[in-house]
């Protein structure tokens, strides 16, 4: 090493989430960018009185545009919401080592609780029209309680048996959703119910304290509904990230890791097995419940059978690809798993539009649909059999990625990042 690592003066500094000023600065800049992401820069498009001559106010065209239209903001919002769920599963499976396939079930519990508490009643469904500060925490708490109820069973089984037990939960959940009281909460099967907006009210008053469901103006800024929701989710995602990080670096988190690494030794060293696992289930389910409620608020429609096995598996994929056991891994994994299919789709769309030249040739080699070509991707969104559709290729891609990561890089993308970072830190020496 040509640069000596900084010596820490106290444990207090050493145990900070971001110990060095460089890290603080980078994290601050990153968060600032996240907050600006849904906006056109400069965010103020109306000329400030007296400054109308400045070029940035010229023709109303933004200088920098990140996410632009509603579609990308929605996808990014989805990443933020699912990241909360992934953080939760990471605590249970990555940190405490209890592999669960039931995460979608707990998200469903959260979503249904939120709909029951905050949704509006009609002839088909129940609902209490309660404000968000009740239904959102309520979603998390209900999921946590269900987590506590199932944990006496879950704590007694390990490894693959736990995976199977939790797998069963998903089917129990879907069954419950189809029972008569389930229909009253989640709406008729395969039709679902309307989900309430995110308006922040004190109680049930007409005008909300903070309007989240229409375009409007916050301080000096025009914000669309999508931008408002994005910011709301971003604040929550940052909050849950900090909570998760704090849990991992304190007593409870260490107990979880100890159980993951050596369960018997952990007990002999004084870590209560049942209590720790129960806490892991409850807290992870709390995260899931909140995320479940938020994810349906994004589409505005609750459909209970969406919380199925595939959804659970998606989170396993997120952890494996991102790097199980690390908070950053859960975040990177969510981004990757949710965004990559979108990029692939965009790319295919771009190919489909390409004519002539190099891009046209590439398009012909990859896509089918034109005449006399041998492509392996169907240009239609839906496709039966070969050639596979884009959506099918995405599934294949993730399958392959999971296997590749399991074999070559168990620490996932996070592990790759650490390697790259260490390489550059030590550059030009490889060791």
């Amino acid at each position: 090493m040509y640069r000596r690592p900084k010596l820490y003066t106290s444990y207090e500094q050493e145990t900070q989430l971001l110990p060095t000023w460089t890290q603080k600065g980078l994290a601050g800049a990153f968060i600032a960018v996240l907050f600006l992401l849904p906006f056109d820069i400069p965010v103020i498009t109306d000329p400030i009185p007296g400054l109308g001559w400045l070029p940035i106010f010229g023709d109303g065209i933004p200088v920098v545009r990140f996410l632009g239209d509603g579609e990308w903001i929605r996808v990014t919002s989805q990443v933020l919401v699912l990241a909360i769920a992934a953080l939760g599963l990471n605590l249970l499976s990555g940190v405490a080592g209890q592999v669960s396939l039931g995460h979608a079930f707990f998200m469903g519990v959260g979503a249904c609780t939120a709909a029951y508490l905050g949704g509006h009643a009609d002839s088909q469904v129940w609902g209490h029209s309660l404000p968000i500060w009740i239904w959102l925490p309520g979603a998390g708490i209900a999921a946590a309680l269900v987590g506590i109820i199932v944990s006496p069973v879950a704590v007694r089984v390990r490894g693959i048996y736990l995976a199977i037990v939790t797998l069963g939960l998903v089917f129990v959940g879907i069954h419950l959703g189809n029972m008569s009281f389930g229909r009253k909460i989640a709406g008729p099967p395969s039709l679902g119910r309307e989900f309430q907006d995110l308006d922040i009210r004190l109680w049930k008053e007409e005008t909300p304290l903070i309007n989240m469901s229409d375009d409007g103006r916050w301080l000096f800024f025009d914000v669309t509904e999508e931008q408002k929701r994005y910011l709301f989710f971003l604040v929550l995602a940052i909050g849950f990230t900090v909570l998760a990080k704090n849990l991992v670096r304190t007593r409870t988190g260490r107990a979880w890791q100890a159980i993951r690494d050596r369960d018997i030794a952990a007990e002999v060293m004084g870590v209560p097995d049942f209590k720790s696992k129960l806490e892991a289930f409850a807290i992870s389910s709390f995260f899931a419940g909140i995320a479940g409620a938020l994810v349906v608020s994004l589409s505005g429609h609750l459909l209970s059978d969406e919380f199925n096995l595939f959804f659970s598996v998606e989170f396993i994929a997120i952890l494996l690809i991102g790097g199980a056991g690390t908070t950053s891994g859960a975040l990177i994994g969510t981004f990757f798993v949710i965004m990559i299919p979108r990029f692939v789709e965009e790319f295919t769309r771009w190919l489909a539009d390409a004519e002539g030249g190099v891009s046209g040739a590439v398009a012909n080699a990859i896509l089918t649909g034109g005449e006399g070509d041998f492509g392996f991707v169907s240009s239609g969104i839906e496709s039966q059999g070969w050639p596979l559709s884009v959506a099918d290729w995405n599934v294949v891609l993730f399958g392959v990625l999971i296997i590749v990561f399991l074999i070559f890089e168990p620490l996932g993308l996070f592990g790759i990042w650490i390697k790259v970072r260490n390489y550059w830190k030590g550059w030009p020496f490889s060791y």
Partner: protein
Amino acid sequence: MSEHLLVVDDITLRFGGVTAIDGVGFHVDEGELFSIIGPNGAGKTSIFNTLSQVYRPQEGDILWKGESIMGMRPDKVAELGIARTFQNIELFANMTVVDNLLTGRHVRMNSSWLSGALWFGPAKKEEMENRRKVEDIIDFLEIEQYRKLPVALLPYGIQKRVELGRALAMDPVLLLLDEPVAGMNQEETEDMARFILDIRRELGIAMIMVEHDMGLVMDIADRILVLDFGQKIAQGLPDDIQQNPDVIAAYLGGELTG
């Protein structure tokens, strides 16, 4: 009853047809260095496992300060102040040295998950205090340079030390050491012996040491229990044990001079 710290009262432990411990009894006093020796498979590790209640003996009783610990959960036993190292290192492999030792302090800490999640306030204060204690142990065991490394990356001899550190972090009253110098070279063995003697002298912690290194046992043990096939064949002072014909027979003469 008596003022013994630990009394093992004629315990018998069976695994199906195998009798791992066959009516063995002994006691350990406060601050004492008690040693259990015996050939492979004699039942030494099994005794440790019954003391931490990982195994439940079918007969007999185990008394801690006069009260039975039979049927107690292992983590409750740890809370009483019985700490332990393992024959095959059982560290938390993916955690750093500091975190392994802090996990040892679990029983001496109180923060709930909630205060931990919020960090600022009581959890942070407790983390700092316990971190200081852990750093003292790290200093004592001379493993400063490995503090931030995951233990899986450390050499065997250092892992053995970290495991001792993790047990010490529990502020134990009784320390169970299962072959603390097995597989170590001369220098590492001497270091470990020095740590064990320091622990007794400076911290006054009672110890039960299972060890095959007879030289070490005869040097530092106060009293010795000899097991063979799960049965007690002798108990007494090191000098007496060395002369005992049954013991010599069990060891086929050779090793005792060690």
